[in-house]
């Protein structure tokens, strides 16, 4: 009896051990980060003039996709998928741009708060439908993508509206030094402020629990239905942020959903979040968004056909997923 007690380590982990454990848990993210560094070096080699302008372009394009990716990542972690992200972004975008037209900055703030609540609400509707009808999430969110798209068309038929000035200033231009675009800082800060406390909370833990094994989560006392609904609500919230960032970067609201849903799924998978759920975080997917953007800009610079970048994205996605399943197959055999 006492022997068993003795084997429990009583001393605290040294920082090296702690770091090693942290690195083991985040191998994929660190690998992505390493790849990103290599890619930046490569970019600098082929294009010595790559600097503030290029970085800011990538960041501005990455802002809406980054939020869409964060939105998708949360629902995938909790074992679902949301194909209506781009439609929700379009709806939020047109509502924001219409309401902000010719209004004061203060009113703009109220609009921002309002559409964030709208995003939460749309997510709640998606989640409730998934849980109540027990229809596969792909089907429900695919159908709801029609609904949100239609709602966006009801608000505005063609791109229009405008953005209040402070919202544009929040996303465009550098902050402090030239090399640091506001869009990138905004993305990282907003995602971190929402996600880090969430991930450490009881709810965040339930997301992972439900995503990795619903039955086990249920038997451990997690309310599976409520957790799923809240995961979709978080997705809606991030989709609303994505919609706001569309308005901020284009100063327009466009009722046609942009190419965000499926590229976000791609970035989520590249970022190390398992489509089976319960695995990964938000850091990896965001790095993946930057990598994809950088590859696209490199190809443009190399005068390669822009469209080959689309091909490259597809090929990279397939390669990464194949690699992932190959590793898993070997693990399960070992």
């Amino acid at each position: 009896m006492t022997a068993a007690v003795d084997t429990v380590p009583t001393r605290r982990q040294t920082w090296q051990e702690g770091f090693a454990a942290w690195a083991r848990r985040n191998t994929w993210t660190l690998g992505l980060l390493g790849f990103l560094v290599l890619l930046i070096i490569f970019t600098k080699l082929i294009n010595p003039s790559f600097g503030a302008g290029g970085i800011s372009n990538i960041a501005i394009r990455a802002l809406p996709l980054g939020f869409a990716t964060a939105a998708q990542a949360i629902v995938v972690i909790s074992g679902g998928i949301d194909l209506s992200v781009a439609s929700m972004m379009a709806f939020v975008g047109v509502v924001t741009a219409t309401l902000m037209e010719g209004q004061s900055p203060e009113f703009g703030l109220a609009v921002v708060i309002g559409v964030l609540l709208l995003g939460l609400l749309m997510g709640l509707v998606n989640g409730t439908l998934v849980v109540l009808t027990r229809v596969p999430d792909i089907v429900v969110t695919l159908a709801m993508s029609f609904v949100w798209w239609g709602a966006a068309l009801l608000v505005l038929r063609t791109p229009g509206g405008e953005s209040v000035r402070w919202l544009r200033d929040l996303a465009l231009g550098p902050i402090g030094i030239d090399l640091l675009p506001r869009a990138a800082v905004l993305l990282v800060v907003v995602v971190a402020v929402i996600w880090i406390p969430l991930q450490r909370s009881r709810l965040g833990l339930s997301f992972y629990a439900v995503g990795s094994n619903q039955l086990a989560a249920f038997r451990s006392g997690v309310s599976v239905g409520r957790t799923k609904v809240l995961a979709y609500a978080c997705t809606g919230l991030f989709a609303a942020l994505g919609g706001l960032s569309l308005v901020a970067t284009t100063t327009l609201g466009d009722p046609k959903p942009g190419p965000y849903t499926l590229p976000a799924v791609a970035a989520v998978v590249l970022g190390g979040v398992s489509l089976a759920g319960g695995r990964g975080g938000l850091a990896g997917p965001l790095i993946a968004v930057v990598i994809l953007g950088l590859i696209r800009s490199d190809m443009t610079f190399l005068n390669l056909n822009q469209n080959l970048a689309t091909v490259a994205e597809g090929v990279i996605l397939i390669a990464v997923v194949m690699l992932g399943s190959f590793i898993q197959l070997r693990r399960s055999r070992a």
Partner: protein
Amino acid sequence: MSEPLQASVAPNPWLTASSWRLLFRDRPIIPLVFLLGLLIVISGLVRPNLINANQGAVILRAAVPLAILAFCQTLTMLTGGIDLSVGAVASASGFLVATLVGDQGLVLAIVIALIAAALVGLVTGIGVGVFRVHPLIMTLAMALVVLGLANVWQIETVQTGAGIPGELRTLGNSFVATYVPYNLAVFVPLALILLLGLRRTGYGRLLYAIGDNPIAARLSGARAWQVLVVLYVISAVLAAIAGFLIAGLNNTASVTLADSFLLPSVAAAVIGGTSILGGRGGIGGTIVGALILTVITALLNSLGYQAAVTQILFGLIIVAVAAAYTRVTAES
């Protein structure tokens, strides 16, 4: 003593709720046809001038390409998959024919486009079947690859220009004897082959078996990867055929022409009673599903609703129908 008495007052089995449920579960096509009839009656009441042979012919013509793309979804869903690359493959095939027909002639152009589509399907099938990539991801990625390659091709051929050959226009757009759409000549044989193929051949049963219970299928000796590779090749070829018809119907070809058919094709299969989880569904239901979607669109258009309202109703109908199926087919 009381037992025979109870038996005699037992309700007619045809009237109990559970027998209705069984009917819905095993023969979803019966309630679907009923729903289609109801929709047509409603259309007739709201818009009497919508119900005539001309309108019927136009609706049929629009439903054919949608139904063929929905076949792709049906077949892949039977195995628990999905094919999100049909839009890109269909657009690219139509575009390929339009750009090649000038130099190569129609037959060769179509053959080249079919081979290209089959190659795409082969790669998808190998990814899904051999490397076990999730079909959603694999077909999504292939859609990106196909769209990118089609765009590259578009830039290469921009000098030669594109034109839809008259034969394709006839096939996709015109009517025989004023009321029979020409594209039925492609559709009917295709649907019959698939219908019989799913019901009567070993390959058809393997699709159901793999979707219903992959482990049981493997233990019974089915080689899932071979079935899946062939399946995705079939799906891509079907998508290419639909792409020809869509190009002919619109008398134009572009690399994104068929994209708007992608989500409705999934919807048609789901409404037709095919389960996205695999093992349940069929061709017949999908045809009725495609007809239902086309009739709804025509009705809403004729009522002068904005596209917005059509979109919203579309989405809500899909959720409602799918929820009804889930309720009915749930094991009790």
